């Protein structure tokens, strides 16, 4: 599975090819330094050996595609934009916790659950995963399923459903990979189900189509 670099390969090609592995090794080494907390020779040596072992073990499965046939290597995320995305996500977590706490403590509990299905134009699976987790952490929405380009989202009141289908968050996630994207074009083909049985039927229809 692992491909050894040829001896005649130039240095830049090596770094380009193994950028993911080097990033992973750096992150794991930082994690080891935080965990260990001792900065003399012996723990750092053990850490280097352990990181090498873990990276070697996990490099064996890097070339296996996902279940939808997509290979994970070779996708570049824009790290600077990720650093601006994370504080916004933290703010959304605070907002969503207060919102759900308000719903919980309200004596009449003004909820109106519904299932929203929409098609997203995100370029790859990692972006979809980031969007799915962000949906789960933003106010009142929870990702139930991702199938192909279609997201099935459980929204708890009407207001959050409108926020969701406006495509604001999709464009923010899309900017991690794409150069420019507007909220209008990201989120299309919206269907809202307010009864449980129809949602399950829609899922089964998808299944039969495959």
């Amino acid at each position, binding site marked *: 599975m692992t491909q050894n670099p040829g001896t005649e390969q130039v240095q830049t090609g090596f770094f380009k090819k193994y950028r993911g592995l080097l990033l992973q090794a750096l992150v*794991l080494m930082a994690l080891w330094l935080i965990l260990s907390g001792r900065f003399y020779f012996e723990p750092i040596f053990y850490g280097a050996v*352990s990181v090498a072992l873990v990276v070697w*073990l*996990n490099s064996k499965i890097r070339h296996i595609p996902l*279940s939808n046939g997509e290979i994970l290597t070779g996708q570049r995320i824009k790290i600077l934009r990720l650093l601006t995305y994370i504080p916004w996500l933290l703010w959304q977590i605070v907002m969503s916790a207060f919102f759900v706490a308000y719903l919980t403590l309200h004596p009449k509990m003004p909820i109106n659950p519904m299932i929203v299905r929409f098609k997203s134009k995100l370029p790859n699976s990692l972006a979809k995963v980031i969007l799915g987790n962000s949906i789960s952490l933003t106010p009142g929405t929870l990702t139930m399923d991702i199938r192909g380009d279609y997201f099935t989202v459980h929204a708890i009141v009407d207001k959050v459903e409108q926020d969701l289908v406006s495509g604001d968050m999709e464009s923010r996630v899309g900017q991690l990979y794409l150069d420019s994207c507007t909220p209008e074009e990201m989120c299309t083909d919206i269907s809202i189900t307010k009864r449980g049985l129809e949602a399950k039927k829609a899922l089964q229809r998808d299944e039969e189509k495959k």
Partner: protein
Amino acid sequence: MISQTQSPIIEIAARGLAPVIQLLGIYVFFHGHYGPGGGFQGGVLLAAGVLLLRLGIGASHSQAQVTSKSTVALCALGAFIFAGTGLVAILWGGDFMDYAYLPVQWLEAADLRYYGILFVEIGITIAVMTGLIAIYDDLLGIGNAGNN
């Protein structure tokens, strides 16, 4: 058998978190000298990292990392390291697991104890990790985990 159809969230979360969990397992193993930890706990966390991949990307795909066939052999190797170190200490004149009697010339008795314990713990870690994976694979009937 279990279908490979899986949500990409779980797949990518498994791929991303498995190295972290494995590194945490190795850290817990090395940390046995200073705090809670040691061979058994480190082995359990390492096995948890491998089993997360088994759950996340499917049992047949994750065979590329740790194959079912190698688990029983590695488990036996871990037990052999554990017992062999103790027996060598007996043969060179000490008690069972008396690391100061290990036949390594260029180390003093204190260092010998330190590295002897580390070596035995490596054996325990390998045995626990691969043993748990072998139990999981055998329960699901994946591959040829036990040669029965």
